[in-house]
């Protein structure tokens, strides 16, 4: 006899909670994703490949992925630094800084996009300063990068913060008594402990950035082959009622984000095994 599917339990509400969970999950998430995959299957692999294998689509997919990667790397470094500052140092304004980290979660993406555009457009506050040194930010790939940094900002800090809180001072003291410099301790004792959490945050920021739409389209300028992101292509196809092409690009994006999550999970398993620390 194999393991039973569901163990017997004296707890009430099995039928009700399972029913609500599975029904809503299917209706809202699984069936619609299934509809997308079915659309792709009906369109056929050849048709999907033909849609995706065009310069404009490749450029947009590559652009979305590349800039998301850059933004996630920036957020990885800045996020770990910020987490360290917020946990270890006491200073005036720490609470405000801590709360501000979450603003990108709370602020609607359209609002973020609008205000970033206002700031970085040639006549905006930062845009004007940048223009003086001949640097154009809004309506270029720099603008997309800044929007993606904004939306991914909280992830790394929020995953790393609790880990720093749990590091015991004794570990650092031991390292110091054995003659390690502060930098050596940081590099060989603290950073390895933070790696899995930091990578998790990095993956979340990356996944979020690749699919981001609202905050990017205002500042991007949406010039085909230059500043056109992949989600926008789906919108364009839908506006032309070209559902097959929209589905093909949508499936390509799904595959990219799943592949990314898989790779990051593998990195995490690897680093966990190497460091032996969750």
């Amino acid at each position, binding site marked *: 006899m194999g*393991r039973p*599917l569901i*163990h017997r339990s004296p*707890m*009430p*509400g*099995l039928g009700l*909670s399972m029913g*609500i*969970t599975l029904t*809503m*999950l299917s209706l*809202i*998430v699984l069936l619609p994703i299934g*509809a*997308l995959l079915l*659309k792709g299957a009906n369109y056929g692999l050849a048709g999907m490949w033909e849609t995706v294998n065009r310069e404009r689509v490749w450029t947009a997919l590559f652009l979305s992925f590349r800039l998301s990667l850059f933004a996630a790397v920036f957020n990885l470094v*800045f996020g770990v*630094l*910020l987490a360290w*500052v*917020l946990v270890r*140092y006491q200073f005036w304004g720490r609470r405000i800084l801590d*709360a501000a980290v979450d603003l*990108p*979660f*709370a*602020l*609607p*993406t*359209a*609002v973020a996009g*609008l*205000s970033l555009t*206002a700031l970085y457009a040639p006549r905006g*506050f*930062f845009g004007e300063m940048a223009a003086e040194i001949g640097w154009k930010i809004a309506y270029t790939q720099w603008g997309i990068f*800044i929007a993606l940094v*904004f939306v991914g*900002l909280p992830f790394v800090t*929020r995953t790393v913060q*609790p880990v720093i809180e749990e590091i015991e*001072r004794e570990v*650092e*003291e031991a390292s*110091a*008594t054995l003659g390690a410099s*502060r930098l050596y301790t940081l590099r060989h004792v603290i950073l390895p402990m933070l790696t899995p959490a930091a990578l*998790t945050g990095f993956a*979340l920021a990356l*996944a979020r950035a690749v*699919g*981001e*739409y*609202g905050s990017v389209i205002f500042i991007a300028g949406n010039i085909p082959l230059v500043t056109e992101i992949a*989600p926008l292509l789906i919108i364009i196809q839908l506006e032309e009622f070209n*559902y097959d092409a929209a*589905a093909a690009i949508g499936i390509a994006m*799904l595959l990219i*984000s799943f592949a990314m999550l898989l790779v990051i999970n593998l990195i995490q398993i690897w680093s966990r095994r190497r460091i032996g620390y969750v």
Partner: protein
Amino acid sequence: MSDITLNKTEPVRFRSATEESPATRWTLIAIGFIGLSILVFAPLIAVFVVALADGIAASLKSLASRDARDAIRLTLTIAAISVPLNAIFGVAAAWFITKFDFRGKAFLITLIDLPFSVSPVVAGLCIVLMFGTNSLVGGWLVANGYPIVFAMPGIILATMFVTFPFVARELIPVMIEQGRAEEEAALTLGASGWRVFFTVTLPNIRWALLYGVLLCNARAMGEFGAVAVVSGKIRGQTATMPTTIEMLYQEYLSVAAFSLAAVLAMLALVTLLLKTALEIRHADQLATMRRH
């Protein structure tokens, strides 16, 4: 024997071995402040500055316009329907996952988290392909007078898709940590299932539930990508606050667009304020405050 003399006029201050030098510390703090000022504080201030560019009267007048009022009403309606539904799902899913042992639990949790890794635009596309007029289900529903896409039900479905994991994700770690002992004790004393839930479980998870609902609501009111795909942006009917902001902006009605954006920004600030208050007062009950 050597003489050891202590120079008492110049006390040497030693730095703890587990601290950085003050210079390093203040540099790092400064980088944090400057980075967040450019990335977070500046955009937040910019929203209000542009909204009030023509004076507060002009902003208020644009908010009183028909389009703005319809958009605010629609966004509130959408949130009022989708957030409670997601809260019910979150509680049911957390109960199912933490109170029972079954095969495939990890897989179920992965499926619940799935919407976080799907682009909002792709989410909207999925809803369109499932319920649009060209689809099997959607075609039948439209023929019977229940249009989903380009109507309110579609916007609700899209909103629920993107906010799906929020409540469940917050509740599951809390309920795992609290275990089943209290509920089991209440059951052996003869309490009914609902009574156990309302008098034992709910008081234990209420702050975590509120926290999840808060974040879910902020995202539901602000969702743009998924809603832009399914709504069709029909003025007065399916234009939510974020989509109306985009329409106003494209018509170069900057003050009107930013005034509406300022309302959403204030909502975000209130959300952050409540969230911080919850974190300070009820840290022990929140999953977010612990190691994931």
